[in-house]
């Protein structure tokens, strides 16, 4: 993996707030702080993973970065281009280069479109292929993801979940992207199929020098696929760093608790292992706790944590962390 020092994607202090209406008649207004001041960089050819519990804002971060949601504040750069200030029309050429694979392969394919048409559509829209050579390109893409050309005239319902996810990957690759957001691409699939899709994603990364933002809640998959990992909690990044550092020497108390909660496939150690079980649940993103968002569940919380938001700072070993205690 050739990691150049120039980041391909740069996200600076992005915030995404959603207005919601509460109360029986929608008379009370409130704001969901889905993503609250998140910054990171992704380098060419690497895989950065975002992990966290549901509702922590990891998918929203991905969507905001792709401008599927427009950020409330902050900027997103693709190479030197500030995506946040482009209009929808101006964005279109960049959409080829930044693509997404969604979680659920059952609802992301149009049931009335043949696989061939579905994969050809983005290429025709972006004028990458002509009517003469589009069929050939579709077959090539299907081969890349491990399907045969017989799939071209068939409909989505004729395929299993794993095959559908392969089709979604082929469609995301149709425009020769450089960067892919993979939003929980395997969590809707069976265990024996998950490994196939992960291998496919890794093969394609090598073949086309792709850069991934991998969003997942399954930590063991993340440990396998990523170069760097970011842990999110309630709209904020808690810790971000090299995979080995985060997994084998976690510093943030939330990272520690999250890792401890993952069951290990070893009955001898697992039956006696003392787990650090977090009490309570994720607080509401409408009314996040003051100071450090994690302080009500944190075993190390002090008065400082209740009052002051911890700074997102760089440690000596190159990782970033937001915690007063670490």
């Amino acid at each position, binding site marked *: 993996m050739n990691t150049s020092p120039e980041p391909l994607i740069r996200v600076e202090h992005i915030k995404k707030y959603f207005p919601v209406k509460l109360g029986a008649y929608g008379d009370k207004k409130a704001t969901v702080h889905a993503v609250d001041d998140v910054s990171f960089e992704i380098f060419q050819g690497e895989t950065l993973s975002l992990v966290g*519990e*549901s509702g922590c804002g990891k998918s929203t971060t991905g969507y905001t970065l792709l401008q599927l949601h427009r950020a409330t504040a902050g900027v997103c750069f693709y190479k030197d281009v500030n995506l946040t200030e482009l209009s929808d029309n101006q964005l279109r050429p960049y959409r080829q280069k930044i693509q997404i694979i969604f979680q659920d392969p059952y609802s992301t394919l149009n049931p009335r479109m043949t696989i061939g048409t579905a994969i050809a559509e983005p290429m025709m829209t972006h004028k990458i292929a002509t009517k003469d050579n589009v069929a050939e390109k579709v077959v090539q893409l299907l081969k890349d993801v491990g399907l045969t050309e017989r799939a071209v005239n068939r409909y989505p319902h004729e395929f*299993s979940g*794993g*095959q559908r996810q392969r089709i979604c990957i082929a469609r995301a690759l149709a425009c020769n992207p450089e960067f892919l957001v993979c939003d929980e691409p395997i969590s809707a699939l*069976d*265990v*024996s*199929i*998950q*490994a*196939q899709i*992960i*291998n496919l994603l*890794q093969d394609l990364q090598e073949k086309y020098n792709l850069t991934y933002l991998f969003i997942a*809640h*399954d*930590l*063991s*998959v993340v*440990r*396998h696929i990523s170069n760097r990992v970011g842990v999110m909690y309630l709209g904020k990044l808690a810790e971000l760093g090299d995979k080995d550092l985060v997994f084998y020497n976690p510093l943030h108390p939330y990272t520690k*608790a*999250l890792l*401890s*909660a*993952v*069951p*290990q*496939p*070893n*009955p*001898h150690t*697992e*039956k006696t*292992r003392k*787990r650090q*079980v*977090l*009490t309570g*649940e*994720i607080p509401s993103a409408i009314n996040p706790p003051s100071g450090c968002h994690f302080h009500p569940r944190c075993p190390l919380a002090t008065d400082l944590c209740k009052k002051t938001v911890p700074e997102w700072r760089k440690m000596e070993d190159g990782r970033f962390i937001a915690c007063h205690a670490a």
Partner: protein
Amino acid sequence: MTRLIQNNGRGNIMGETLLQVTNLTTRFHSRGNLIHAVNGVSFKIDKGETLGVVGESGCGKSVTMLSMLHLLPPAARVVAGTAFFHDKDLLKLNSREMQRIRGNHIGMIFQDPMTSFNPVLTIGDQVGESLIYHNISNRAGAEKRVIELFRMVGIPDPEARLKDYPHQFSGGMRQRAMIAMALACEPELVIADEPTTALDVTIQAQIVEVVKDLRDRLGIAIIWITHDLSLVAGLADRIMVMYAGNVIEEATTEDLFDQPTHPYTLGLLAALPAFQASKNSKRLSSIPGSPPDLRAEPTSCPFLPRCSYAINRCAIEMPLAHEIPGNGSTPHSVACFVNTQERITVQ
């Protein structure tokens, strides 16, 4: 409540068979096709024991349990088999007799706590309903018992939460309420169908701790259905692996992880990313292909098209479960013609 206190730990009650299922076979009718969902499943569970049932979606693990409880959809029929709970064959009971067992002697925890509650009734009413239905207590008594149950499963402020509606509970809290509901009548057996699949890992860890604690205190037998082998590693006494409606391997948890024998079990374990992290291998080993079409009458080993160990015999007959030597306290049985253990040592 008295029944609760009398059980002192589960060590001294294990060994007595609670449920014995033999050759259970269930078929679905679908658009003129016959779906072979469960093909002769046999297993038993002792009092106070925890059995993990592992398999992919569509392998028949849920249908097996629903068959026993007469909860199958109208398109499905149990065509053969017996399921003795104590000395009663559950499959021969009429619906009235079955109602007396369900909820009272066998509790059920379903996968999705979001859709398993009635949205217009309070949680307290729903958890207490079975107590009133089975004539265990009156309304006032049921309320007291629900408060006690809520405290047991770790729902804070039980007196107030009793009157809440399902939408006021979070996913984890709803699953705790489901557990409370399953335990309300102090059943001897609880069937948990993927109870943590819809939950986050930290909440999953909380639920697993609650269930382990209750099992040890109350001495309930648990059938825990899951697709996650790592999850049952720390929870189950015995594990049964299912594939395409068949039990393909069964052993004590330690034995299954130390000596996995069926090619499918080997593949499942090898495909776990957690299992491979230590090896730092670049690629995950995966099982090629996808699960079989259940419309075809099973005449050969269902795993044959995906199996790398297959021999000629696998295409002609269906392998039956047979015992192999193991270290566990209960037999290790495998439905495979090939001795994969030997093959591994030879390589």
